[in-house]
């Protein structure tokens, strides 16, 4: 008898434990095994303007005013990088050999160096226009061309609002598949000789990659900002960002292999600040 009662107990327990409040409806998943509740989100009164965000953080803390001045420097590689082989030797392209790499080899542009190890295609920029900076009318964006299945330039800086014109000078179609973080991604086919115009709405946090799906090796990098405080290095590795207000700024330095490097810079009123050589260790370049 004891045992029987125990067994009934067991059954009861299992019934209560597993079958509670579920005998009327099939309840899917653990969701229904616990009482589920809906709550309403408390909309915070602060709207989208991030004034407080600007005040705090590393953005700007105006100290001892002064005229805006430019910051300049040079990006160099610390160490020696291996010689990158060309993607395709002359006439050796996988697709469209009649056009791509017809006259010259297609180089691997993921790391382009000057004679003294100066790094090209490095982006130097600020996240936001510093407070108190003079509003300058954004100048027109430079044009992106596609020649012999290479994007020219490989890295460029684009301002929001202004049209960004892409051109296909090749006798073959290309397409531009963008992968931005904040703007909408595009992937449009471009006829031979055609041009296309993109407009970016929002500033990006980082440069983003764009590529051609037809010629998978074609890539370029775009930095989209809503202010002019940015520069892209060439093979001299030199950069200059003009008329920054005096104070402390957070410089972003970005390269497609090295990734993001952040550096604080102090602008004393008046004279330009030279950061000298900014060394990027070769280890960051992700060679095997």
């Amino acid at each position, binding site marked *: 008898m004891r*045992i*029987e009662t125990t*067994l009934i107990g*067991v*059954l009861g327990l*299992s*019934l209560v*434990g*597993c*079958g509670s409040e*579920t*005998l009327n409806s*099939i*309840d*899917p*998943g*653990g*969701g*229904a*095994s616990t009482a589920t509740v809906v709550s309403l989100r408390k909309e915070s009164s602060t709207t989208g303007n991030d004034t407080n965000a600007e005040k705090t953080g590393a953005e700007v803390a105006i100290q001892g005013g002064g005229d805006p001045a430019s910051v300049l420097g040079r990006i160099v590689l610390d160490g020696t990088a291996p010689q990158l082989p060309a993607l395709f030797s002359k006439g050796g392209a996988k697709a469209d050999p009649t056009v791509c790499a017809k006259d010259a080899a297609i180089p691997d542009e993921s790391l382009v160096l000057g004679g003294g190890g100066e790094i090209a295609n490095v982006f130097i920029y600020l996240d936001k226009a510093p407070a108190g900076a003079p509003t300058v009318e954004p100048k027109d964006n430079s044009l992106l061309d596609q020649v012999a299945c290479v994007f020219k330039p490989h890295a460029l800086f684009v301002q929001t609002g202004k049209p960004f014109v892409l051109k296909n000078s090749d006798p073959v179609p290309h397409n531009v598949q963008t992968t931005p973080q904040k703007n909408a991604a595009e992937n449009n086919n471009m006829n031979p000789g055609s041009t296309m115009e993109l407009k970016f709405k929002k500033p990006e946090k980082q440069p983003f990659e764009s590529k051609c799906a037809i010629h998978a090796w074609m890539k370029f990098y775009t930095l989209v900002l809503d202010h002019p405080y940015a520069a892209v290095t060439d093979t001299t590795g030199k950069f200059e960002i003009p008329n920054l207000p005096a104070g402390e700024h957070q410089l972003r330095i970005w390269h497609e292999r090295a990734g993001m490097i952040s550096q604080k810079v102090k602008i004393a009123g008046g004279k330009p600040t030279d950061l000298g050589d900014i060394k990027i260790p070769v280890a960051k370049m992700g060679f095997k």
Partner: protein
Amino acid sequence: MSNSHAVAVQEHQDHHAGHHEPGFIGKYVFSKDHKIIGIQFLMTTLLMLLVGGALALGVRFQLAWPWRAMPLIHTLTGGLFGSEGGQISPEFYTMLFTMHASVMIFLVIIPILAGAFGNFLIPLMIGADDMAFPTLNMLSYWFMWPAIFCFGLSFTIGGLNAAPANGWTSYPVLSAVVDASPSAGAPQTWWLIGLTFVGVSSMMGSVNYMTTIINMRAPGMTLFRMPLTIWSMFITAILQAFALPVLTAAGFMLVAERTLGFKFFVPGNLVINDGAPTIGGGQPLLWQHLFWFYSHPAVYIMLLPAMGMVSDMLACKVRKPIFGYKPMVYSMAAIAGLGFIVWGHHMFTSGMNPALGMTFMISTMMIALPSAVKVFNWIGTIWGGKISFDTVTLNCVAFISMFIVGGLSGIWMASVPTDIYFHDTYYIVAHFHYVLFGATLFGCFGAIPFWYPKMFGRKMNDTLGKLHFLLTFIGFNGTFFPMHMLGIAGFPRRYADPYIHPYMEHLLPMNRFMTLCAILMGLAQLILIYNFVSSWFIGERASRNPWNANGLEWTAPSPPGHGNFDIAPICYRGPYEYSSPLNPSDDFLMQTDQIVAR
């Protein structure tokens, strides 16, 4: 003086046994003694019974509380088996029922009958001192373990959360194309290898049984003086010997198809899991034919020994000779014979030649006949007996009753048009659970306490036995009888969530009830285990012949020593001479008793 004499006697007995004591390992682990082997089989199968039962409870739980976090699954598997947010995934459900069937059929029912009781009883009942091939016998047990290992491995290989998920029938193409089912790659293959090991094991057993029964019978033990248990074991052995090779071959073919790229079963131009179209001209039905050519006789392999044992126990319990001994033997033989020509009734809806359908229907109908004869004979045996109601009797009667239900529900399966509707619904599930669980396992639950004294020299606790029987019986019918209703309502097998189909929604409460009954039944087995183990130590000591039975095994000491019989038995008559007028003093007359002339 006396000491030395005792020693002398000891030595003499050893010599008589024809052996000298082996060490512990030799005696209890790699023993060649058929009794030890039988007990090893029994232990293993009871363990596996618990495993299979647990898997079944998993299935039942999902059907009763679909997509509810399964109890213990996380505690036991640490959130393995592809469950997210506590809810199991459908492929895990398929693994559950696949492994439930595999374990129950290949690791419980077949070995517990042929392996455990076959091994233990055959030499004792025919008065032999051991099996014909003791080493082969030992191997047949130890080949179980690779099988268990492979099944277990199939559960854990492949990212720890894939098991065979193609049903125990593992029909190709699903089981033949690696990408077709979650058991991608290894598990299904390991499962097939495990199957082969089971086959090898039972093959060794069957060869051994046949030889032993034919050659090693005690003097005077003619074929028609053999207990029905022996007859059933004999017939089973023959069945296995003839059916198993086919399954083994089919298994190898499937393994070859999965691993070596043979094309036996997979036709061309099937696109599976976005793969390339299959090439080759296989025929899926080939597997079904091969598989069922084994697996239908296997159903009788899983049943006949229970029939035999129940006959023996019943005769002893009602103190009456078996009603129609020879018809019983003939019907068993008939079942075995017909068993080979009815496999097609598993394939009525598979689109095979309808003419075949008719022939298979008729042969299937005919196989119901010997079963009917046996039932009537059992009832006739009870008729006019003096019944002592204990665990054994209860289980035997349950066996008969359940077998009637299972057999009768089979008639719908046999008749093709109704089978068209019932095929692969829960009606089938009800049917074969009534036969395999209802009949066979109740038979075993009777046989365990009946021969327990002979195994361990002690009796099992009868009260606990009755309690275990009661709960099991209630739980069993509560679980499986409603399945007939489900089947009639068109409730298909192997559905993880049938209730997304509107016409089955209303069946949920019934499934909850069945699951509760299943839990009850599962817990009841703990009583059996407890009773089994505890009686070993605290059970009441048993004499040589505690049930006043007639068989030769009861002339041996309990438990019998090495070599079984201290007095070599001579058989004078059939095993069922209960209440014979020839013995006025008592209501039984053992096969070894010479009639005292007076």
